[in-house]
């Protein structure tokens, strides 16, 4: 493989007709360029769409209660019910492979009235009663102080973590919110931390939230044992879409809901939505690969063609070499290596060219600001190595027929060609 004479010969053959080599190389170069650019464009679109999902753990479902639609066990249709705090333990006991189960309660919401007061400033915010795990399901960066912990839960401390949006509304620029009090629906909470969400999914709304311990929330706002809704995340290995039926049926059983009442327990399966998007991009990627490889194929055929001509031109030389005792396999290897070398080099040119174009698009996007549904198109190292593998294989394929025809010529016939 790393034989000096062999490589010299490969270079001699390929440079003996420079323009022919360049035109041949262009076919492969163009094919791989198209492949890379299409994949990068697909990735850019994917990045743009997935940005909207933000950082939320995608293997997650949300579940809430609605009015029943069927009578069951003597209970009427149209009955309202609430999840209770011990439902959480029941789910944990009955459904395996769940990572987080966060019961949540909420104050405020879309178009809500002003519910938070500090001094003379007021604002309308979403206030959540939460367990500490929520930070794993709805990730946020704690910018000062700390997040909720189990001591807060157990001791029902009236503490709050506020978003940067809340902080900007209620505090002066140089004021430190930590250790101050805010009044949520007439109840004072001590601010112990601030956070910033980096997903743009919630937009400004995401920064205008206040998190307080679930237990303190229940006590302060008279929720008793009630749970507003739950956010449930499955372990990485298992899909929440599979587990959700089991979870819902556990809830129905505990709350005396008819097993076939499909409306009493509402849920939103984030994973399913995510999967739908994911499979869309899978399809997009497949299209990119197919188109790219088809274009590449015509380049490969060009290489194969040229190698056939090279073999034809060198028929006599091959005859001489065989008369001198070169093994057929060695001749075959020579042709194959020439072909692979040509495809690889021209393919790398295509990759480099494609990367430059992607780089150009990225810096253009950076300078004109974010574009809807399109963000940082890129190709991963995996794609590049994949492309190189495709090139290796196609070089091999391109050289195969010419190499075969090179050794099929009997030395005596080869020597006769003038």
């Amino acid at each position, binding site marked *: 493989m790393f034989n*000096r*004479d062999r490589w010299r010969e490969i270079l*001699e053959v390929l440079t*003996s007709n420079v323009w022919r080599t360049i035109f041949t190389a262009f076919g492969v170069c163009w094919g791989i360029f198209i492949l890379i650019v299409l994949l990068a464009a697909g990735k850019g679109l994917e990045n743009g769409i997935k940005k909207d999902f933000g950082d939320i753990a995608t293997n997650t479902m949300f579940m809430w209660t609605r009015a029943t639609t069927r009578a069951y066990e003597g209970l009427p249709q149209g009955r309202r019910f609430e999840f209770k705090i011990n439902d959480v333990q029941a789910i944990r006991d009955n459904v395996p492979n769940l990572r987080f189960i966060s019961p949540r309660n909420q104050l405020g919401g879309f178009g809500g009235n002003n519910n938070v007061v500090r001094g003379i400033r007021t604002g309308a915010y979403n206030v959540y009663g939460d367990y500490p795990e929520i930070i794993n399901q709805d990730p946020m960066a704690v910018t000062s102080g700390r997040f909720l912990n189990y001591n807060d839960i157990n001791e029902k401390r009236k503490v709050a973590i506020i978003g940067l949006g809340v902080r900007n509304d209620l505090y002066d620029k140089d004021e430190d919110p930590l250790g101050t009090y805010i009044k949520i629906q007439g109840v004072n909470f001590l601010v112990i931390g601030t956070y910033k969400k980096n997903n743009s999914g919630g937009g400004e709304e995401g920064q205008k939230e206040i998190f307080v311990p679930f237990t303190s929330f229940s006590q302060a706002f008279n929720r008793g044992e009630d749970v507003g809704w739950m956010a449930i995340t499955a372990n990485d290995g298992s899909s929440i879409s599979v587990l959700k039926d089991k979870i819902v049926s556990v809830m129905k059983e505990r709350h005396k809901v008819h097993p076939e009442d499909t409306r009493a327990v509402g849920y939103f399966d984030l994973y399913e939505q995510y999967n739908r998007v994911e499979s869309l991009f899978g399809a997009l990627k497949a299209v990119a690969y197919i188109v790219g490889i088809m274009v590449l194929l015509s380049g490969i055929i060009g290489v194969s063609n040229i190698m056939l001509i090279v073999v034809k031109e060198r028929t*006599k*030389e091959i*005859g*001489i*070499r*065989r*008369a*001198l*005792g*070169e*093994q*057929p*396999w*060695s001749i075959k290897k020579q042709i194959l290596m020439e072909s692979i070398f040509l495809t690889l080099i021209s393919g790398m040119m295509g990759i480099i060219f494609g990367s430059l174009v992607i780089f150009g698009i990225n810096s253009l996007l950076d300078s004109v600001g974010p574009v809807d549904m399109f963000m940082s198109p890129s190709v991963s190292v995996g794609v590049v190595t994949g492309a190189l593998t495709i090139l290796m294989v196609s070089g091999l394929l391109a050289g195969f027929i010419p190499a075969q025809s090179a*050794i099929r010529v*009997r*030395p*005596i016939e080869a*020597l006769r060609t*003038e």
Partner: protein
Amino acid sequence: MIEIKDLHKSYKMGSNSLHVLKGINFKVEEGELVAIMGSSGSGKSTLLNILGMLDGADSGEYTLDGVPIKNLSETKAAQYRNKFLGFIFQSFNLINYKSALENVALPLYYQKVPRKERQEKAMQYLDRVGLKPWATHHPSELSGGQKQRVAIARAMAAEPKVLLADEPTGALDSKTSYEVMDLIQKINDEGNTILVVTHEEDIAHMCKRIVHLKDGVIVEDKKIEQVRAEQYV
């Protein structure tokens, strides 16, 4: 060294079959210098090709240095060619984009001799044919006689048992022809077995034995008094 018995060979030309060799029996001892003569179409080149394992016989036996040559795979044939045989062609058949030295080193390359040793050895053989100063020249920069001498050096480089020369002087004027024959005689003097196919009487008489081929059979096989080529050079 070479022994063939009842060798037959025919070529298919469309629907006709052309019987070229019709039972050749022939033996060459070590150190002989044999001329194979005959008019064109007599089968002499075919015989040489079979001897050179470039072509297969239809029937008959062929033994080279005690090794039966039969039903060889291409790989095996290539190995034997490399080990046993050196070829000298009418049209020299040097590889154009390689220098004289590289051409001579080629058979050694196929024997997987290390690069350095290969070049030393090739240089040695080039020196023997008097072309050391032309080592880096490409074939296009050499005269016909020089090319043939490079080809002879190349044929000798692998130290084969037998040298096969197919009209080695066919493309040369008589002066260079004699020079080449002189070289061949000298190589023969060192004990190498050489077969020369030719249709020129004077060249044939510079060998030690003449085999006449006519219509695919040997019509005459005689030892002769060798004419040294030296005196014409």
